[in-house]
């Protein structure tokens, strides 16, 4: 598995709006961080090629406005919100190769050795420079950050 975290280096309007909405809902927080998480199930031999590919797919990472990092475990204090396991939507298409294998294709780029990709949004709430208590983050998740009809809190194998 190879998991990436992509964060905006310019002001994040969505995070700003989420913080305001959460404050109006009574969630005690004065700082918020939002990142996109991409988890690839990839052959170990193709990890290097995948790193290069991800850095060149602008729908994932644009160096003018994003910071990209490799994630080895979900950091404490974050909640990751992804599609429900039973939701029908797929993050990427597969296309067959000449030999009949199916590769994941993102933005027209075939990703060799990648069997699947999962996406999530990571949220972190802080107050006074400290992460909020887990129950506060859970409350924010239930009230606004996650729609249980098609989303759930996810843990990716990293």
């Amino acid at each position: 598995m190879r998991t990436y975290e992509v964060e905006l280096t310019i002001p994040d309007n969505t995070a700003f709006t989420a913080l305001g909405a959460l404050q109006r809902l009574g969630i005690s927080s004065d700082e918020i961080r939002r990142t996109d998480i991409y988890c690839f199930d990839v052959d170990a031999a193709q990890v290097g090629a995948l790193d290069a590919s991800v850095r060149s797919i602008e729908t994932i990472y644009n160096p003018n406005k994003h910071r990209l990092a490799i994630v080895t475990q979900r950091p404490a204090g974050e909640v990751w919100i992804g599609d429900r396991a039973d939701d029908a939507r797929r993050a990427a298409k597969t296309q067959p190769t000449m030999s009949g294998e199916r590769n994941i294709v993102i933005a027209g780029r075939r990703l060799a050795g990648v069997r699947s990709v999962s996406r999530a949004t990571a949220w972190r709430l802080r107050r006074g420079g400290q992460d909020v208590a887990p129950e506060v983050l859970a409350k924010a998740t239930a009230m606004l950050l996650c729609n249980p009809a098609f989303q759930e809190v996810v843990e990716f194998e990293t």
Partner: protein
Amino acid sequence: MSRRVAVIVFPGTNSEEETVRALSAVGLEPILVYPRTGRSALAGFDAYVLPGGFAHEDRIRAGAVAAHDPVMDAIIEAAQTGKFVIGLCNGAQMLLETGLVPGTGALRRPTAAFAPNSSGRFRSVLVHVKLAGDPARSPLTAGFEPDAVFPAWASHGEGRLAAPAQELDRIRRDAHVAFEYCDRNGRVSAAAVPNGSALACAGLMNRAGNVLALMPHPERIAWTFQQRDPAIIAAAHGAAMRALTPAGGIVFFRGLAHALAERSPRPQPQCTGGVR
């Protein structure tokens, strides 16, 4: 005296004008209402419409932030007293985020959603929708012919009905689907669904049938000059004023007018031709 319909305008709403024109055309009195309007002022309307657009830029999820706006507290209260509430596209997304539709769970704990399209892309395409079941299921559809088909514009990136399997079973079993995607002849098929929506669902309602969430836009094809049906176009050819008469998607708004007329002893409003 006309029935007053509140048309709620959030920051980012963009379909209020055509919604107002369609409501006026069926004899109703639409009033634009902004989020800072007080609760007591909002209580005085006969019905409420949440029009389409991108309220709050769809930040977090479409309709998620608007669903928690204080104006929605008044809408929820009105819906719970039995008043009619309609959501169109973004408005529909808001109604599902509030849990008013399908209304099978707690408020603001959604049990179903109009989630991202299965393609992952925004899509704008002319569709047709038909009544999903018995017109008598809801006062808002009681005036429809059983086999009524009308055109609408599906213009969204998040219009796919999504819910856990047990909830979809309950939605189907309890007849919450108000409208289905179909072809122009009324045939429901996967090919007619523009977004992968479960149950071919274009519109969903609550148990009482007074709250209805419709994803495609009937107000964007509510006048003769907007129609694509060759027969309608031919009939209006050479008659400029006829081109300005209501047609197509106006059927949906006549449903609201009919429902309001049936609710009180006031005379049934006539559909007034022309543009407001």
